């Protein structure tokens, strides 16, 4: 793959010329990573080094006590499990529903298609913060308060419009001719889609589910307001936001808890970096 460097017309000392660029790159990396690094390194530092007038950029001594405190805290494992369940449930449900809708929009011509997409776009902008009270009332009246499936459903709805838009973009990039060829070979239309297009769609599905994952994993307001009496059903963001109350001045434990909360997202994003970065070019952006 060719580098896309813009080559200078007059070859002046290239190293010197690239210096500002490299410095800018280094600064970007530092700014991006410092908060993440500071969170992790604080989590590993002994308390006396954390609360010192002279912060150390690199921990001299490492300790796991903060992680121990965070993990031993009341219900940590439970909240972690809740978060995972709710998030995965929402993402998978959204993928399933969105796949059908995206296929219909990208591959079929029908009356109301444009109106449907308009609805999806509007839904993407939904003012979720303002819907807390009505959603609370509706959940109460249908006896859905305090339950994780309620959160799953809401997160599903929050991520669905976005998932449809992106998946439609991905499906649009797969030439229909491939499926048509398969149909000639005797497959049904749906069969052709599943056999031919699905494997091509895998990266798209992955990229899309990442965005859904991060949204649902992060959600705070609904989890905070809809889980009232069954506190065992709380999710990590809510727990983390109350962590400072529980742990007081223990910033080490707070940062350890944040690290454990951020870890799944960081790992998944890093592993799938390529799909993340290309996802938008092929999906959402090309609309």
């Amino acid at each position, binding site marked *: 793959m060719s580098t*896309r*460097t813009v080559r200078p017309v007059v070859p002046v000392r290239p190293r010197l010329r690239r210096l500002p*660029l490299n410095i*800018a*790159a280094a600064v*970007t*990396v530092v700014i*991006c*990573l410092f*908060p*993440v690094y*500071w969170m992790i390194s604080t989590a590993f530092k002994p308390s006396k080094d954390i609360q010192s007038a002279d*912060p150390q950029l690199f921990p001299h001594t490492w300790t796991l006590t903060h992680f121990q405190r965070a993990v031993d805290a009341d219900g940590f494992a439970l909240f972690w499990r809740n978060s995972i369940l709710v998030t995965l449930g929402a993402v998978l449900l959204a993928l399933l*529903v969105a796949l*059908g809708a995206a296929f*219909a929009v990208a591959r*079929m011509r*029908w009356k109301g298609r444009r109106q449907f997409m308009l609805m*999806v776009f509007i839904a993407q*902008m939904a*003012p979720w*913060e*303002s*819907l*807390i*009270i*009505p959603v609370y*009332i*509706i959940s109460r009246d249908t006896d859905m308060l305090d339950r994780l499936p309620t959160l799953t*459903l*809401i997160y*599903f*709805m929050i991520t*669905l419009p976005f998932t*449809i838009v992106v998946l439609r973009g*991905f499906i649009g990039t797969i030439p229909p001719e491939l499926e048509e060829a398969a149909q000639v070979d005797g497959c049904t239309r*749906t*069969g052709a889609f*599943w056999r031919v297009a*699905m494997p091509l769609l895998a*990266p798209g599905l992955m*990229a899309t589910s990442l965005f859904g994952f991060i949204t649902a994993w*992060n959600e*705070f*307001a609904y989890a905070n307001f809809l889980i009232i009496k069954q506190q065992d059903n709380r999710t990590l*963001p809510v727990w983390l936001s109350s962590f400072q109350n529980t742990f007081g001045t223990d910033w080490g434990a707070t940062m350890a808890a944040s690290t454990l909360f951020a870890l799944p997202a*960081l790992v*998944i*994003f*890093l592993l799938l970096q*390529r799909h993340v*970065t*290309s*996802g*938008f*070019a*092929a999906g959402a*952006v*090309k*609309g």
Partner: protein
Amino acid sequence: MPVAVEPTSAPRTPRQRPAPHPAARRKPAGRAHGLWPYALIAPAIGGMLYLLVYPLVRAVLISFQDFRLRQLISGNAEFVGLRNYRTLLADPRFWEVVRRTFLFMAVNVVLIMVIATLVALMVERLRRVGRTVVLCSLVLAWAMPVVAATTVFQWLFHSEFGIANWALTSIGLDSFERYPWFANGTAAFAILVTLIVWQSVPFAAITLYSALTTVPLELYESARLDGAGAGRIFRSVTFPMLRPIFLLVFSLEVIWTFKAFVQIWVMTRGGPGDATTILPVYAVQTALSSQRYDLGSAASMITVILMSGVLVLYFRQMFRQEDETR
């Protein structure tokens, strides 16, 4: 670590055929498309109607009612017409919040767009290794969960042990010794802007960068042959090519910063004073702290109306692309 960032549109050869899905054996109903598309979108429509439209209608209703704690508990709210809207629009504090919301949005969006464009241009010019490193760190910053990032920023700017105060003091700015960032309205506002810019730039930069890679190299070369400088090339080649994507990223960022809520709520609750109270925070505050769900809903509706100005731009862009792809 995968390095190459190429549009996924390049069709990959299917490695293996997956087992046919049970649905595949069913015959599609009717001729051509028939009812199929409607069946496919039905779950999405159903979900939207019940989980989005219905609550939205309830919210609109509440904004026309006298709806407080008593009504939340026992129901039986009375309709009061436009009273809540009149109360809000007559309140100077509300207008202050509206002004602040727009300021907050403008500052954030301008910073995000400028920084993201610069970062995207920079990444494009980097060599392979550098590019991977920068992209990875962007992705990491992006993946950082909001609540975790907010907590970390609170720690960075902690008045006693925060590294920000330490750094500023050690370069000789003694007035930052134990400086209480969250006590000063402007400082708290600035920290929130920093946080939101930090969180939003990765998405914008990566998207813009991906788009940059689609600009044909020949265009640059011919521009250079015409003797255009870097600034000129950006203005007359890069920007026009990327215009649609710029517009999209721009509208998305406008909408996202307009709705920024969790960061503010977890960090400052809109304080000190009203210094970081923007519309969504105001709506929640009114609803939950003063138990005026009716006023809170009305404020949300006004937020939606104000936002739709930006939305029109977004939809126009969406549909222009829509028509191009057809």
